[in-house]
């Protein structure tokens, strides 16, 4: 088993896992903190990759500035969804789908074609991480993730960040306490998609290209990572930094498991089916738990009645 993991390059798999885990943190912000299922991410992940690759290859920009631009582009995508949701009154899911749909055109505009390479040999001084140097990539991704988690942890500890958490937790209570819930929803979507696009920019560097389809299914992978992380860390003291970290660990595990089952002979084509089923099952668990509990209580009451 261990041999198998080593043979397909554990560091590389883990580096990718961290990148997707970072994306999952974006999903965590909307899905868990804001209580919104935001489908924008499928588009904004690719937007991040596209913006990064183009600003490096076409405009010769510094990699950090390119990453910043990718982040900003993601923020704008989130802004669009937020405006659709709060100012147009469109349900959150549909708002995300609309933005994602629109982003397909926008991403094609940015990339000019479906797939643009970021040649690592040519840009070796520029690119931060690459699949050619997996251990190096793993370390850098880990540092990157730690910084993002730190910044987000600080943000959610501020008055503004706290009001954002309240907005997701209880909008009625938030408004009664003078919190502008609409603005906060927009802000949450902006930050989330910024993080997602940033991880898209990292993945584009790692794999050496940006692709119009690179974000397809991102929301599902993000949910998978969040859920795996949640199951693993359920018992540990759950402050927000731990929860963000658990999403990263979830992303890594997801990628390691996927690599393993592929090695064991699963067809790559069937992967999405498998992932979707696993996510559906895990999302279903709390619901089933509740109905089992309810029926137990019912039975208990019935038997009590009989006994009397």
């Amino acid at each position, binding site marked *: 088993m261990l041999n198998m993991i080593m043979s397909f390059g554990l560091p590389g798999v883990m580096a990718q896992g961290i990148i997707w885990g970072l994306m999952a943190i974006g999903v965590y912000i909307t899905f868990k903190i804001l209580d919104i299922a935001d489908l924008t991410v499928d588009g904004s992940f690719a937007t991040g990759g596209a913006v990064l690759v183009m600003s490096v290859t076409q405009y010769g920009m510094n990699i950090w500035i390119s990453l910043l631009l990718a982040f900003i582009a993601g923020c704008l995508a989130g802004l669009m969804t937020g405006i659709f949701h709060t100012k147009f009154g469109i349900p959150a899911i549909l708002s995300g789908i609309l933005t994602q749909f629109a982003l397909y055109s926008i991403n094609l505009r940015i990339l000019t074609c479906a797939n643009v390479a970021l040649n690592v040999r040519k840009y070796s001084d520029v690119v931060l991480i690459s699949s050619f140097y997996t251990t190096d990539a793993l370390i850098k991704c880990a540092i990157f993730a730690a910084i993002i988690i730190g910044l987000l942890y600080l943000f959610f500890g501020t008055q503004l960040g706290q009001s954002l*958490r309240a907005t997701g937790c209880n909008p009625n209570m938030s408004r009664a306490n003078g919190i502008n819930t609409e603005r906060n929803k927009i802000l949450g979507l902006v930050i989330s998609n910024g993080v997602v696009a940033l991880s898209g920019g990292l993945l584009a560097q790692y794999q050496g290209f940006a692709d119009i389809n690179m974000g397809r299914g991102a929301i599902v992978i993000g949910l998978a990572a969040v859920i795996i992380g949640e199951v693993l860390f359920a018992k540990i003291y759950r402050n927000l930094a731990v929860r963000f970290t658990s999403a990263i660990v979830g992303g890594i595990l997801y990628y390691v498991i996927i690599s393993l089952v592929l090695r064991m002979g699963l067809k790559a084509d069937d992967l999405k089916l498998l992932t979707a089923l696993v996510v559906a099952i895990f999302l279903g668990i709390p619901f089933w738990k509740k109905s089992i509990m309810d029926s137990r209580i019912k039975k208990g009451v019935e038997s009590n009645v009989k006994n009397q």
Partner: protein
Amino acid sequence: MLKINNISKTFNTGTVNEKKALINVSLHLKEGDFVTVIGGNGAGKSTLLNSVCGVFNIDSGSIEIDGADVTRLSEHKRAKYLGRVFQDPMMGTAADMQIMENMSLAYRRGKKHGLSWALTSKEKKVYKEMLSQLGLGLENRMSSKVGLLSGGQRQALTLLMAVAQKPKVLLLDEHTAALDPTTAGKVLELSDKFISENNLTAMMITHNMKDAIAYGNRLIMMNEGRIIYDVSGEEKKNLTVDDLLKKFAALSGEEFANDRALLN
């Protein structure tokens, strides 16, 4: 302190479900007034309170709080004037957040939420002090999630949060209705204590006529979107439940229809 001028609200206008919930209602409260509100199911009591809070736009009329016209102000902007406790104990607090985090949200009601750290040790001391007023021991578990508290504890906390930043008007919508009688009594006592100690202007909807008579200095009765009876001072103090039921029958031409009121 609170001036409700001739306000009306119709729900589902132009449909078969059209419902005139408030019809030309006016009510002026002086500073320190504590008015109890009674009336049958669907009389418009909650709609009246929600109008003041800005949960929805009213169709006509105006609302002034402490001299400021708030008629067109959105709900979160009005919040700086208002303390609120809802009927549902789940509604007034954020379950996934700590007790002290909830307190700090309330303590900052109506102020800017900036990028400075939310929980300073100085503030924590203030919250501890405030929580100890409840006598529930919550001051010793400030980092517990509010979701772990019982309904009564949560409602007491919501009440404390509503007055943490002195409100111009305190609005209580059947805030003890979901609690067991003993807990309800305690929360009610606390409400009365906070109101009198801080000389708050308050409105309290209740389905319990005895409470409506025992608390406050003024009582209004609502029916079908109108205030049909308004009494204060000595006359209010000397009322009995029987008087109120008779009054209701005489003024509305029907029996008092509030299933919960009849249980009491």
